Protein backbone atom coordinates (compact mmCIF):
# COMPACT_ATOMS: atom_id res chain seq x y z
CA UNK A 1 0.00 0.00 0.00
CA UNK A 2 1.45 3.35 -1.00
CA UNK A 3 0.73 6.32 1.23
CA UNK A 4 -0.23 9.68 -0.32
CA UNK A 5 1.32 12.94 0.72
CA UNK A 6 -1.04 15.83 1.66
CA UNK A 7 -0.11 17.50 -1.65
CA UNK A 8 -0.94 14.38 -3.64
CA UNK A 9 -4.19 13.98 -1.70
CA UNK A 10 -5.23 17.54 -2.59
CA UNK A 11 -4.41 16.96 -6.27
CA UNK A 12 -6.35 13.73 -6.26
CA UNK A 13 -9.28 15.49 -4.59
CA UNK A 14 -9.04 18.26 -7.24
CA UNK A 15 -9.05 15.72 -10.05
CA UNK A 16 -12.02 13.95 -8.48
CA UNK A 17 -13.85 17.26 -8.10
CA UNK A 18 -13.18 18.17 -11.77
CA UNK A 19 -14.33 14.73 -12.83
CA UNK A 20 -17.50 15.10 -10.71
CA UNK A 21 -18.06 18.59 -12.11
CA UNK A 22 -17.72 17.24 -15.69
CA UNK A 23 -20.18 14.45 -14.86
CA UNK A 24 -22.60 16.98 -13.37
CA UNK A 25 -22.31 19.21 -16.48
CA UNK A 26 -23.04 16.21 -18.67
CA UNK A 27 -26.00 15.33 -16.44
CA UNK A 28 -27.26 18.93 -16.59
CA UNK A 29 -26.89 18.96 -20.36
CA UNK A 30 -28.78 15.69 -20.63
CA UNK A 31 -31.47 17.05 -18.30
CA UNK A 32 -31.81 20.22 -20.38
CA UNK A 33 -32.19 18.12 -23.53
CA UNK A 34 -34.79 15.88 -21.89
CA UNK A 35 -36.74 18.87 -20.47
CA UNK A 36 -36.61 20.63 -23.85
CA UNK A 37 -37.99 17.59 -25.63
CA UNK A 38 -40.59 17.23 -22.92
CA UNK A 39 -41.66 20.87 -23.35
CA UNK A 40 -41.79 20.50 -27.13
CA UNK A 41 -43.86 17.34 -26.69
CA UNK A 42 -46.27 19.01 -24.26
CA UNK A 43 -46.63 22.03 -26.58
CA UNK A 44 -47.38 19.71 -29.49
CA UNK A 45 -50.02 17.89 -27.46
CA UNK A 46 -51.59 21.18 -26.29
CA UNK A 47 -51.57 22.60 -29.81
CA UNK A 48 -53.37 19.46 -30.97
CA UNK A 49 -56.13 20.29 -28.50
CA UNK A 50 -56.23 23.96 -29.31
CA UNK A 51 -55.87 23.95 -33.08
CA UNK A 52 -57.50 20.68 -33.99
CA UNK A 53 -58.43 20.40 -37.64
CA UNK A 54 -62.01 19.28 -37.25
CA UNK A 55 -62.12 18.07 -40.85
CA UNK A 56 -59.41 15.48 -40.45
CA UNK A 57 -59.97 11.75 -40.04
CA UNK A 58 -57.93 11.98 -36.87
CA UNK A 59 -60.51 14.37 -35.44
CA UNK A 60 -63.28 11.82 -36.05
CA UNK A 61 -61.23 9.16 -34.23
CA UNK A 62 -60.57 11.50 -31.31
CA UNK A 63 -64.26 12.37 -31.16
CA UNK A 64 -65.22 8.68 -31.10
CA UNK A 65 -62.81 8.09 -28.23
CA UNK A 66 -63.90 11.13 -26.23
CA UNK A 67 -67.56 10.27 -26.81
CA UNK A 68 -66.98 6.76 -25.56
CA UNK A 69 -65.08 8.04 -22.52
CA UNK A 70 -67.83 10.55 -21.77
CA UNK A 71 -70.59 7.97 -22.08
CA UNK A 72 -68.94 5.48 -19.75
CA UNK A 73 -68.54 8.23 -17.18
CA UNK A 74 -64.77 8.64 -17.42
CA UNK A 75 -63.69 12.03 -16.14
CA UNK A 76 -62.46 14.24 -18.97
CA UNK A 77 -60.07 17.09 -18.27
CA UNK A 78 -61.37 20.59 -19.04
CA UNK A 79 -59.28 20.65 -22.20
CA UNK A 80 -60.58 17.27 -23.32
CA UNK A 81 -64.18 18.26 -22.59
CA UNK A 82 -63.77 21.52 -24.55
CA UNK A 83 -62.36 19.55 -27.46
CA UNK A 84 -65.20 17.04 -27.18
CA UNK A 85 -67.79 19.86 -27.33
CA UNK A 86 -65.99 21.50 -30.25
CA UNK A 87 -65.82 18.29 -32.29
CA UNK A 88 -69.41 17.31 -31.44
CA UNK A 89 -70.61 20.62 -32.92
CA UNK A 90 -68.23 20.67 -35.87
CA UNK A 91 -68.25 17.06 -37.00
CA UNK A 92 -71.46 15.45 -35.80
CA UNK A 93 -73.52 18.68 -35.67
CA UNK A 94 -74.74 17.62 -32.25
CA UNK A 95 -75.73 19.77 -29.31
CA UNK A 96 -74.83 18.55 -25.85
CA UNK A 97 -76.40 20.80 -23.20
CA UNK A 98 -73.59 20.12 -20.74
CA UNK A 99 -71.23 21.99 -23.09
CA UNK A 100 -72.96 25.30 -22.37
CA UNK A 101 -73.67 27.59 -19.44
CA UNK A 102 -71.21 26.17 -16.93
CA UNK A 103 -72.61 28.60 -14.32
CA UNK A 104 -76.15 27.33 -14.93
CA UNK A 105 -79.12 28.74 -16.82
CA UNK A 106 -80.89 31.82 -15.48
CA UNK A 107 -84.19 33.32 -16.66
CA UNK A 108 -85.21 30.29 -18.70
CA UNK A 109 -87.94 30.49 -21.34
CA UNK A 110 -90.32 27.53 -21.15
CA UNK A 111 -90.09 25.45 -24.31
CA UNK A 112 -86.98 27.18 -25.71
CA UNK A 113 -83.39 26.09 -25.25
CA UNK A 114 -81.47 29.28 -26.00
CA UNK A 115 -78.18 27.39 -26.22
CA UNK A 116 -79.61 25.77 -29.37
CA UNK A 117 -82.43 28.15 -30.32
CA UNK A 118 -85.18 27.49 -32.86
CA UNK A 119 -83.89 27.89 -36.40
CA UNK A 120 -87.11 29.61 -37.40
CA UNK A 121 -89.95 31.38 -35.55
CA UNK A 122 -92.42 29.09 -37.29
CA UNK A 123 -91.70 26.39 -34.74
CA UNK A 124 -92.34 28.62 -31.71
CA UNK A 125 -95.91 27.46 -31.26
CA UNK A 126 -99.21 29.27 -30.83
CA UNK A 127 -98.33 30.82 -27.46
CA UNK A 128 -96.12 33.31 -29.23
CA UNK A 129 -97.88 36.23 -30.92
CA UNK A 130 -96.28 38.46 -33.53
CA UNK A 131 -96.34 42.00 -32.05
CA UNK A 132 -94.03 43.65 -34.58
CA UNK A 133 -95.03 47.27 -35.20
CA UNK A 134 -95.99 48.11 -38.79
CA UNK A 135 -93.03 50.53 -39.13
CA UNK A 136 -90.63 47.87 -37.86
CA UNK A 137 -92.12 45.45 -40.37
CA UNK A 138 -91.60 47.92 -43.15
CA UNK A 139 -88.09 49.01 -42.23
CA UNK A 140 -86.44 46.00 -40.62
CA UNK A 141 -85.89 42.25 -40.83
CA UNK A 142 -86.95 41.82 -37.23
CA UNK A 143 -90.01 39.98 -35.98
CA UNK A 144 -90.98 40.51 -32.35
CA UNK A 145 -93.00 37.92 -30.46
CA UNK A 146 -94.79 38.13 -27.13
CA UNK A 147 -95.78 35.10 -25.13
CA UNK A 148 -99.49 35.35 -24.44
CA UNK A 149 -99.12 33.61 -21.05
CA UNK A 150 -95.95 35.08 -19.60
CA UNK A 151 -95.69 38.38 -21.48
CA UNK A 152 -92.04 37.61 -22.34
CA UNK A 153 -90.82 39.21 -25.56
CA UNK A 154 -88.22 37.88 -27.95
CA UNK A 155 -87.04 38.98 -31.39
CA UNK A 156 -86.04 36.99 -34.44
CA UNK A 157 -83.67 38.65 -36.83
CA UNK A 158 -83.17 37.63 -40.42
CA UNK A 159 -79.52 38.37 -41.11
CA UNK A 160 -79.29 41.15 -43.66
CA UNK A 161 -76.84 41.26 -46.52
CA UNK A 162 -73.84 43.46 -45.82
CA UNK A 163 -72.23 45.83 -48.31
CA UNK A 164 -69.50 43.29 -49.08
CA UNK A 165 -72.16 40.77 -50.15
CA UNK A 166 -71.85 38.50 -47.13
CA UNK A 167 -74.91 37.82 -45.01
CA UNK A 168 -75.12 38.27 -41.28
CA UNK A 169 -76.41 35.03 -39.74
CA UNK A 170 -79.99 34.82 -38.50
CA UNK A 171 -80.20 35.30 -34.79
CA UNK A 172 -82.43 35.98 -31.79
CA UNK A 173 -82.49 38.71 -29.18
CA UNK A 174 -83.85 38.50 -25.67
CA UNK A 175 -84.54 41.85 -24.01
CA UNK A 176 -84.01 41.72 -20.27
CA UNK A 177 -87.41 42.45 -18.67
CA UNK A 178 -85.60 43.50 -15.48
CA UNK A 179 -83.19 45.85 -17.26
CA UNK A 180 -82.25 48.95 -15.30
CA UNK A 181 -79.79 50.51 -17.75
CA UNK A 182 -77.51 49.82 -20.73
CA UNK A 183 -75.40 47.37 -18.75
CA UNK A 184 -78.12 44.72 -18.54
CA UNK A 185 -80.23 45.52 -21.58
CA UNK A 186 -80.27 41.99 -23.07
CA UNK A 187 -80.05 38.40 -21.87
CA UNK A 188 -77.52 36.03 -23.37
CA UNK A 189 -78.06 32.36 -24.26
CA UNK A 190 -77.57 31.39 -20.61
CA UNK A 191 -80.03 34.04 -19.41
CA UNK A 192 -77.28 36.22 -17.99
CA UNK A 193 -77.79 39.99 -18.43
CA UNK A 194 -75.47 41.58 -21.01
CA UNK A 195 -74.82 45.12 -22.04
CA UNK A 196 -75.92 46.79 -25.26
CA UNK A 197 -73.57 46.13 -28.22
CA UNK A 198 -72.10 43.07 -26.51
CA UNK A 199 -71.57 40.15 -28.90
CA UNK A 200 -73.42 37.83 -26.54
CA UNK A 201 -76.63 39.80 -27.04
CA UNK A 202 -76.89 37.96 -30.36
CA UNK A 203 -78.15 34.42 -29.87
CA UNK A 204 -76.95 32.65 -32.97
CA UNK A 205 -78.86 29.84 -34.56
CA UNK A 206 -76.73 26.71 -34.45
CA UNK A 207 -79.04 24.24 -36.16
CA UNK A 208 -77.67 21.34 -34.11
CA UNK A 209 -79.42 18.10 -33.23
CA UNK A 210 -79.87 17.56 -29.48
CA UNK A 211 -77.53 14.85 -28.22
CA UNK A 212 -77.69 12.66 -25.14
CA UNK A 213 -80.64 14.49 -23.58
Amino acid at each position, binding site marked *: MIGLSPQETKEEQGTAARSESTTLSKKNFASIIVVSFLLIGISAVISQFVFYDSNSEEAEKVLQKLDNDYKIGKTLTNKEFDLYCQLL*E*KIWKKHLKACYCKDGIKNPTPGIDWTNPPSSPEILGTDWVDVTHSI*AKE*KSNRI*IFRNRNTGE*EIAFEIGRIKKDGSR*LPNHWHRPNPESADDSDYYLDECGKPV*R*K*SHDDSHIWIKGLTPYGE
Partner: protein
Amino acid sequence: MENNFLQSLDEIEFHDLAIKSLTLDFESKSCKFMFEEYDSVKQIYCPLEINFYGLSKFISKYPSEFDFKVGTCYSMKYEKQKDSLYELEFLFELTSLQPVYSLTICFTSLTVKRTLSDKAIEFKNTGFDSKIDERLWLEKNSLAV
Protein backbone atom coordinates in the same frame (compact mmCIF):
# COMPACT_ATOMS: atom_id res chain seq x y z
CA MET B 1 -61.58 62.59 -50.21
CA GLU B 2 -65.29 61.99 -50.64
CA ASN B 3 -64.76 58.24 -50.95
CA ASN B 4 -62.60 58.27 -47.85
CA PHE B 5 -65.28 59.50 -45.50
CA LEU B 6 -67.93 57.27 -47.01
CA GLN B 7 -65.61 54.30 -46.74
CA SER B 8 -64.99 54.98 -43.07
CA LEU B 9 -68.77 54.91 -42.61
CA ASP B 10 -69.12 51.69 -44.58
CA GLU B 11 -66.59 49.93 -42.38
CA ILE B 12 -68.78 50.29 -39.30
CA GLU B 13 -71.37 47.70 -38.36
CA PHE B 14 -74.26 49.78 -37.06
CA HIS B 15 -76.57 46.89 -36.33
CA ASP B 16 -77.15 46.58 -32.56
CA LEU B 17 -74.73 49.38 -31.84
CA ALA B 18 -75.36 51.26 -28.60
CA ILE B 19 -75.91 54.99 -28.95
CA LYS B 20 -74.88 57.16 -26.03
CA SER B 21 -75.66 60.71 -27.14
CA LEU B 22 -76.47 63.11 -29.95
CA THR B 23 -75.35 66.72 -29.93
CA LEU B 24 -76.71 69.29 -32.34
CA ASP B 25 -74.83 72.47 -33.09
CA PHE B 26 -77.19 74.87 -34.86
CA GLU B 27 -74.59 77.57 -35.30
CA SER B 28 -72.12 75.43 -37.20
CA LYS B 29 -74.83 73.22 -38.74
CA SER B 30 -73.24 70.06 -37.46
CA CYS B 31 -74.15 67.17 -35.21
CA LYS B 32 -72.19 64.63 -33.24
CA PHE B 33 -73.29 61.04 -32.60
CA MET B 34 -71.55 59.12 -29.84
CA PHE B 35 -71.83 55.36 -30.16
CA GLU B 36 -70.20 52.57 -28.21
CA GLU B 37 -68.59 49.53 -29.85
CA TYR B 38 -67.70 46.37 -28.02
CA ASP B 39 -64.13 45.13 -28.26
CA SER B 40 -64.45 41.34 -28.10
CA VAL B 41 -60.70 40.91 -27.87
CA LYS B 42 -60.04 43.11 -24.85
CA GLN B 43 -63.63 42.86 -23.59
CA ILE B 44 -63.99 46.59 -23.21
CA TYR B 45 -66.29 49.23 -24.71
CA CYS B 46 -64.84 51.77 -27.09
CA PRO B 47 -66.37 55.13 -27.97
CA LEU B 48 -67.14 55.83 -31.61
CA GLU B 49 -67.71 59.45 -32.58
CA ILE B 50 -69.25 60.52 -35.88
CA ASN B 51 -69.55 64.18 -36.77
CA PHE B 52 -71.72 65.30 -39.67
CA TYR B 53 -71.14 68.72 -41.21
CA GLY B 54 -73.15 70.97 -43.51
CA LEU B 55 -76.49 69.80 -42.13
CA SER B 56 -79.46 70.76 -44.27
CA LYS B 57 -82.08 68.35 -42.97
CA PHE B 58 -82.85 66.84 -39.58
CA ILE B 59 -85.99 64.72 -39.22
CA SER B 60 -86.60 62.75 -36.04
CA LYS B 61 -89.66 60.52 -36.19
CA TYR B 62 -91.25 57.75 -34.13
CA PRO B 63 -94.79 56.49 -33.47
CA SER B 64 -96.50 58.40 -30.67
CA GLU B 65 -97.57 55.26 -28.82
CA PHE B 66 -93.94 54.55 -27.88
CA ASP B 67 -91.99 56.06 -25.01
CA PHE B 68 -88.85 57.85 -26.13
CA LYS B 69 -86.55 55.21 -24.67
CA VAL B 70 -83.90 54.56 -27.28
CA GLY B 71 -82.40 51.09 -27.40
CA THR B 72 -79.68 50.42 -29.94
CA CYS B 73 -79.11 51.43 -33.54
CA TYR B 74 -80.75 48.96 -35.88
CA SER B 75 -79.35 50.12 -39.20
CA MET B 76 -77.80 52.95 -41.16
CA LYS B 77 -78.19 53.69 -44.83
CA TYR B 78 -77.27 56.66 -46.99
CA GLU B 79 -77.54 57.81 -50.56
CA LYS B 80 -76.07 60.60 -52.59
CA GLN B 81 -78.58 63.36 -53.37
CA LYS B 82 -76.46 65.56 -55.58
CA ASP B 83 -72.88 66.81 -55.65
CA SER B 84 -71.50 66.67 -52.12
CA LEU B 85 -74.91 66.21 -50.52
CA TYR B 86 -75.92 62.97 -48.85
CA GLU B 87 -79.04 61.79 -47.10
CA LEU B 88 -78.56 59.35 -44.27
CA GLU B 89 -81.10 57.49 -42.15
CA PHE B 90 -80.40 55.89 -38.80
CA LEU B 91 -83.03 53.48 -37.57
CA PHE B 92 -83.11 52.98 -33.81
CA GLU B 93 -85.12 50.62 -31.70
CA LEU B 94 -87.36 51.91 -28.97
CA THR B 95 -88.52 49.85 -26.02
CA SER B 96 -89.15 46.16 -26.66
CA LEU B 97 -86.68 45.96 -29.54
CA GLN B 98 -89.03 47.68 -32.02
CA PRO B 99 -86.97 49.41 -34.75
CA VAL B 100 -89.39 52.29 -35.27
CA TYR B 101 -87.40 55.46 -34.58
CA SER B 102 -85.89 56.99 -37.70
CA LEU B 103 -83.49 59.88 -37.75
CA THR B 104 -82.81 61.35 -41.18
CA ILE B 105 -80.18 63.96 -41.93
CA CYS B 106 -78.68 65.56 -45.01
CA PHE B 107 -75.01 66.49 -44.80
CA THR B 108 -72.03 67.39 -46.95
CA SER B 109 -69.15 65.78 -45.07
CA LEU B 110 -68.35 63.76 -41.99
CA THR B 111 -65.56 62.59 -39.73
CA VAL B 112 -65.27 59.30 -37.89
CA LYS B 113 -63.24 58.82 -34.73
CA ARG B 114 -63.10 55.11 -34.04
CA THR B 115 -61.22 53.79 -31.04
CA LEU B 116 -61.75 50.08 -31.62
CA SER B 117 -58.44 48.23 -32.16
CA ASP B 118 -57.53 46.77 -35.56
CA LYS B 119 -57.59 43.27 -34.10
CA ALA B 120 -61.08 43.80 -32.68
CA ILE B 121 -62.25 45.07 -36.10
CA GLU B 122 -60.73 41.98 -37.72
CA PHE B 123 -62.57 39.84 -35.16
CA LYS B 124 -65.86 41.62 -35.95
CA ASN B 125 -65.38 41.18 -39.68
CA THR B 126 -64.47 37.51 -39.55
CA GLY B 127 -68.06 36.30 -39.13
CA PHE B 128 -67.75 33.24 -36.91
CA ASP B 129 -70.11 30.29 -37.11
CA SER B 130 -69.98 29.54 -33.42
CA LYS B 131 -68.58 30.51 -30.04
CA ILE B 132 -66.05 27.72 -30.40
CA ASP B 133 -64.75 29.26 -33.64
CA GLU B 134 -64.50 32.62 -31.91
CA ARG B 135 -62.48 31.13 -29.08
CA LEU B 136 -60.20 29.25 -31.46
CA TRP B 137 -59.56 32.44 -33.42
CA LEU B 138 -58.62 34.24 -30.22
CA GLU B 139 -56.32 31.39 -29.20
CA LYS B 140 -54.68 31.19 -32.63
CA ASN B 141 -54.01 34.90 -32.46
CA SER B 142 -52.62 34.53 -28.96
CA LEU B 143 -55.45 36.65 -27.64
CA ALA B 144 -57.06 34.05 -25.42
CA VAL B 145 -58.96 35.65 -22.59
